[in-house]
């Protein structure tokens, strides 16, 4: 050969600097988390009390479980959160499921039927997302926004925009029960996290879902039926909305309006979670940490007497920062 083109080798140096900036962002995220916890421990009275710490975990449970739903969608539709998929409907979906559950309970159907109906509702909404994104090929941002409105509208139809109080022995157990000193709500968080960490991080299924999201064509070339995986991811997000809706009702002893407002913190948690992973991809562990992080923020602000309205602003800033940082790190 008379000429050699040095393109293949020339790229490796850049990749290294990319890795370095990734590492810096990742360590920075951990440091920020630790720093904020330490700051609250010193500045906010009662932050480190066992009661408050359990409270944080419980507050983070609902946020975290719904964020798991979005995380699975992120994993299956593109680890690049900007071009990939998203599920904007999940919070509204949880509100609808809670309404279905509450209305059926009021009509005297009992826990078993009502819970199954609530979860089925969530999964149907998930199926609708899958239909819109996979079969109809509408861009996920728009498709799930539309589905979000469908879910929110149905919730209003069912509840007529009122609070529907619900009582049942099961809800009592979820809301006030404890086992080994840990509340039922926290147990739900732990058990579901462990199951999902296995399913996504340690099972063949999880690896394939990551492959579908990581490089759609490559996954297809490896013989994976990619459409089914994306469908499944959306249906799973709906399933999580259904399950979480029961916890929401138990915590408030009612179905209330306004569940849809949780969308921002859910997205913040799922996006922030990517910063905690080595490969900058959504992981259950990362989302778990991020949900706790946001829970700590909200709790600390409360204890310091800062208006809770600020929390929403901080979450918005977090989303912007995370998306900017991850896409910046990936650009190298």
């Amino acid at each position, binding site marked *: *050969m*008379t*000429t*050699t*083109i*040095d*393109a*293949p*080798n*020339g*790229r*490796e140096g850049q*990749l290294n600097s990319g*890795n370095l900036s990734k590492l810096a962002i990742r360590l920075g995220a951990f440091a920020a988390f630790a720093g904020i916890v330490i700051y609250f421990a010193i500045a906010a009275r009662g932050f480190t009390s066992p009661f408050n710490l359990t409270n944080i975990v419980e507050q983070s449970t609902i946020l975290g479980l719904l964020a798991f739903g979005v995380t699975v969608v992120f994993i299956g539709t593109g*680890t690049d959160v900007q071009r990939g998929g998203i599920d904007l409907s999940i919070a509204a979906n949880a509100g609808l499921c809670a309404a279905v559950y509450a209305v059926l309970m009021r009509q005297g159907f009992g826990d078993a039927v009502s819970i199954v109906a609530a979860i089925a509702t969530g999964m149907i909404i998930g199926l609708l997302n899958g239909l819109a994104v996979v079969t109809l090929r509408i861009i996920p941002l728009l498709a799930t926004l539309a589905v979000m409105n469908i879910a929110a509208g149905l919730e209003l139809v069912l509840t007529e925009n009122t609070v529907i109080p619900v009582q049942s022995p099961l809800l009592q157990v979820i809301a006030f029960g404890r086992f080994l000193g840990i509340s039922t709500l926290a147990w739900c968080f732990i058990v579901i996290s462990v199951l999902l960490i*296995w399913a996504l991080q*340690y*099972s*063949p299924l999880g*690896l*394939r879902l*990551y*492959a579908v999201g*990581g*490089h759609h*064509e*490559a*996954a*297809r*070339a*490896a*013989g*994976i*039926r990619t459409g089914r995986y994306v469908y499944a991811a959306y249906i799973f997000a709906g399933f999580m909305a259904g399950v979480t809706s029961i916890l929401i009702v138990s915590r408030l002893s009612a179905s209330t309006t306004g569940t849809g407002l949780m969308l921002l913190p859910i997205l913040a948690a799922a996006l922030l979670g990517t910063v905690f992973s080595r*490969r*900058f*991809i959504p992981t259950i562990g990362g989302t778990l940490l991020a949900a706790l992080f946001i829970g700590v923020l909200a709790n600390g602000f409360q204890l310091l007497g800062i208006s809770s309205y600020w929390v929403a602003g901080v979450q918005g800033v977090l989303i912007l920062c995370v998306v900017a940082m991850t896409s910046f790190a990936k650009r190298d």
Partner: protein
Amino acid sequence: MTQAAIEMHGVNKTFGPVRALMDANLVVHPGTIHGLVGQNGAGKSTIIKVLAGIYKRDSGTVRVHGQELDAITPAAIEACGVHFIHQDRLLVPTATVAEAIFLRNEPHIGPFINYRQMNKRATELLKRYFDLDLDPRTLISELSTAKQKIVQITRALANDAKVLVLDEPTAALVSKEVSSLFAVLRRLKADNLAIIFISHYMSEIDEICDVVTVLRNGSDVGVVTPAEAGIEAIVQMMTNRDTSEMYPRRDVTIGEPVLSVNGLTLAGHFRDVSLEVRAGEILGITGLLGSGDKELVSTLFGQSVPDRGEIVLNGKPVSFRSPVQAVRHGIAKIPEDRRAHGVATGLSVGENIALASLDQMSGWGFVNTRTEAAKTEALIKELGIKTPDRHTMVKNLSGGNQQKVVVAKWLSCDSQVYLLDEPTVAVDVGAKVEIYNLMNRLASEGKALIFLSSDLEEIVEMCDRVLVIYRGALIGEYQRGEIDADRLLAAASGAQMEQEGRSA
């Protein structure tokens, strides 16, 4: 004779009016490296995609190890032990090496992936086949192109491949990597694998292939042994086409140099390129995929900023930092991918034509619609663009007519240098001739044309002078009549250098 690994007989495939495969046959035996060659559009990638189950064949039979396959799906063909190493490295960038190798075939204990076993086996496979010490936990995105290619092949081997299809495997490799890839292929051949090897590089075909199937215009025109037939014969089989009255003649006196380039370099793409093009001249540039030809032309158009070298226009050095500046200096480009760069398909024919020359058609911030109408109508008529009227949306036109709209767009702005990047790709023969006529007309008006094409016949017939670019460097210059398509192909694919190397 042993049982053939792959037998494809009488395969047909059409895309709309285009017949991509016509009764094509391909028979590959175990323990051989089987070359598949042909010019662009000869049907190489179509026949492979039919085998891979990406395209459905219209008719014909496909047998794998004697077993007839009706409908092929990617999963089914892989289950038969046929694995494809695609040209674009289809790997998940966020996966590790081990994960990429064992995707869909993960070693597991119960419901858990056995990562220890997976990493161990990945390490062993890479060591055994490639003698490569690579941490299996490295992310794909951190690997060089060559190593990604190796991971793809390892993946096929881990899945017990019996047939390996490599589509342009060396396109992104440097020569040392190519020779180690060849060593691996020879070892796999000794293990009785059947290997289908697709390459534009004739020297590689000569070096590695036992048998070669030559495709031309969608049919197989011969199965030969390179060692016996020789490269020249294969090249001739590839190009031997009926050159009827497709190429109109012109009579032009070539004038002064308009555009010249000295020592132009764009790192990673081309280096030290010097050329000049004169008024009334059509200068052809040809090279293989990835040879740097496209980057050269887009650099002349200001789409990339060169690292070194100068561009001289009408005797004055110029430098373009954007296409806008190039257009202001009277340079026009007709891009290959007209959907992406050439036309706004949502706008009307008239609007598209006017787009490049709005300045000349407007005053005081308003488009002079009467001037626009007159000018565009004239061009539509002149170029024979088949459209109901100038208000029709471009997306409703055929490919050839869309291309003519692109040409018209640049004609209307009266440039002095025209860069044409594969202007006749995917247009029918009739439209091709009209585009050739246009090129001749431009030349006769004293314009300078740089014509990029991988259709060698077209290059030979249309150009006053042809430059050959190979791996980023200009390696040959031929005057009209000095070269035919066969020799040009040999030059562009490096066969000539190979032979010079041998005789030296």
